[in-house]
């Protein structure tokens, strides 16, 4: 399969490191000058941008968390004036949305990056591409559309359509590539049901996700008889294009001329050796509007520096299931346990809860289990408990923007 931009994608490691160092230094200089969050963080840690003389020196700088970003909403993270920002993508997640701004140049860089990603998944101008991603929920939809159009493919924006309509489009317009979340793709496969997938023109699915879901990929491949390509992204970062599988399917090539990845010990923040699993921490190297420095993704990953048979010299990320913090991702929305707990405690002070993500028919639902320390409640009428559950459910929806399944359990049982 071809490589869209051989210069950065097959660069010598030395050349790439030089470009990364230059861009890192420029990013730190700009962030320190223009963004209060970073100026305060750097000052507090007693570090200055000019102390970064090599990529490894970044380890002395403080990490950035989602909470940091939340504290500077809506526009406090921008390194350029608002009137230079041409698009805003509020990234849903724990604690509310975090807005990511894009300048004209940011969008051009992103589109190119996403086009590289689609190329590595074999998309060409001959393809008919159906994009099922929700354009409002996820920035990836617009990124994928611009990229596919840049490559000259024929794009069908199918955002927000019911699976039945999606299936019709897929059949009627001889769609060859599907761009969707793994769940959307599975839903579509289920909608097609027992239909023989052989007459479909569909060849591959480019699956955009915040987490690693190999089982889902396998099921989609089997049901639709296609190849799948994983694209990892975060709404706070740029997707698609951040990291993508190539035809070799041995990890996701990181767009290293645009991002610097570190694998850190989640507890101490100390850098881990190549091959060890740790928290993926990312720094943007080319973003103008919203630079992010040492952003903690909360994802566990291993970095593989060895060259890949596809010819790309870009390091590969191997995503490891599980997260290091209490974050769950439901239909692209990231939530922390603490945040759900807080909402639950509005109504039931002191009641502990835990979270689970239910997978059913390709759809994800968040289950909130709440331990109740009041046996009388369980002895009471069912009607009363039902009303309480509905009340909590509505309250959660109001605060999290997500319908959940609420289960009430006796505290004693939960403790066992």
């Amino acid at each position: 399969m071809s490589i869209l931009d051989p210069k950065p994608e097959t660069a010598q490691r030395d050349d790439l490191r030089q470009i990364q160092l230059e861009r890192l230094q420029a990013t730190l200089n700009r962030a320190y000058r223009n963004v209060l969050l970073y100026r305060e963080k750097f000052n507090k840690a007693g570090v200055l941008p000019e102390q970064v003389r090599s990529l490894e020196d970044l380890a002395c700088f403080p990490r950035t968390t989602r909470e940091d970003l939340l504290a500077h909403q809506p526009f406090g993270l921008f390194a350029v004036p608002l009137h230079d920002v041409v698009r805003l993508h509020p990234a849903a997640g724990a604690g509310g949305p975090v807005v990511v701004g894009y300048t004209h140049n940011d969008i051009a860089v992103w589109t190119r990056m996403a086009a590289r990603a689609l190329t590595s998944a074999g998309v060409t101008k001959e393809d008919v591409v159906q994009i099922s991603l929700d354009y409002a929920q996820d920035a990836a939809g617009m990124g994928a559309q611009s990229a596919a159009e840049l490559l000259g493919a024929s794009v069908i924006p199918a955002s927000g359509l019911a699976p039945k309509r999606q299936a019709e489009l897929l059949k009627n317009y001889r769609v060859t590539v599907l761009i969707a979340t793994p769940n959307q793709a599975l839903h579509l496969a289920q909608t097609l049901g027992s239909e023989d997938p052989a007459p479909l023109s569909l060849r591959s699915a480019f699956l955009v996700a915040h987490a690693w879901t190999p089982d889902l990929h396998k099921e989609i491949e089997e049901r639709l008889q296609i190849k799948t390509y994983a694209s990892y992204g975060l709404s706070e970062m740029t997707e698609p294009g951040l990291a993508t599988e190539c035809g070799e399917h041995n990890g996701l090539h990181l767009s290293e001329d645009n991002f610097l990845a570190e694998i850190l010990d989640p507890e101490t923040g100390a850098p881990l050796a190549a091959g060890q699993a740790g928290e993926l921490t990312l720094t943007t190297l080319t973003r103008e509007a919203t630079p992010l420095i040492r952003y903690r993704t909360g994802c566990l990953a291993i970095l593989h520096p060895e060259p890949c048979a596809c010819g790309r010299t870009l390091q590969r990320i191997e995503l490891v299931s599980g997260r290091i913090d209490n974050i769950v991702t439901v239909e692209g929305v990231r939530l922390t346990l603490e945040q759900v707990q807080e909402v639950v405690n509005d109504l039931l002070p002191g009641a502990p809860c835990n979270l689970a993500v239910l997978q059913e028919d390709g759809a994800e639902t968040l289950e909130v289990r709440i331990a109740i320390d009041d046996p009388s409640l369980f002895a009471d009428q069912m009607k009363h408990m039902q009303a309480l559950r509905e009340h909590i459910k509505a309250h959660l929806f109001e605060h999290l923007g997500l319908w959940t399944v609420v289960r009430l359990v006796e505290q004693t049982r939960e403790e066992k």
Partner: protein
Amino acid sequence: MLRIENLAAAYGQILALKGVSLHVSRGEIVTLIGANGSGKSTLLAALAGLIRPKDGTVYLKGKDVTRLSAEQRVRKGIALVPEGRQLFAPMTVEDNLILGGYTRSQSDAREDLEMIYNLFPILRERREQAAGTLSGGQQQMVAIGRALMSRPALLLLDEPSMGLAPKISREIFQSLRILVNAETSVLLVEQNARLALAVSDRGYVLETGQVVLEGESASLRNNHDVQRAYLGRGYQEGWETNQETANAR
């Protein structure tokens, strides 16, 4: 071709460059833009070996040249076209050019002289004239030609458009595109950011001795900060700029 890591330089107590990293690839024209005092000319002076850096490393074709003298650097392939041309005014055009080829054999220098006359035909006509009697644009051609006589791998240009009429500047910049090839790359410092970004492949924006932006020239032209600071308030993306881009290319 050229790789600079964390270059720092000072004039007395004043740190004019604070850890600048940049590179110029083979066959590239790279421009440095920045306000007065941002460190652009200091960077060129440090590269040419005219001032000694406080810190950092300079690699030319993979070899560390940080500690070499200005003269040794010329032999390694770095040539500077200084601000204000600095020609030997009473000497003829041809003698000025030949001086630039002092590191080469006579026959090689002859050959290069031909190449320079082909690049700037007006100099052939004026070859016997004293350099000081030429117009500003022609003097700039002599200065560039003199630097080219050493067959540099890297040509450093400090404000080539200074004091020249816009039309002449454009001609000079057009010649840069012609002379850049697999053997010669260009690092350009220029007040006229619009013209520099039109002719170059990539650029770096310097502010108070630090790089704050790096990118392809086309994307720097689209950057609003660059437009506000270096392209002037009246910057128009209309006829004039397109014209300049077309001409420079």
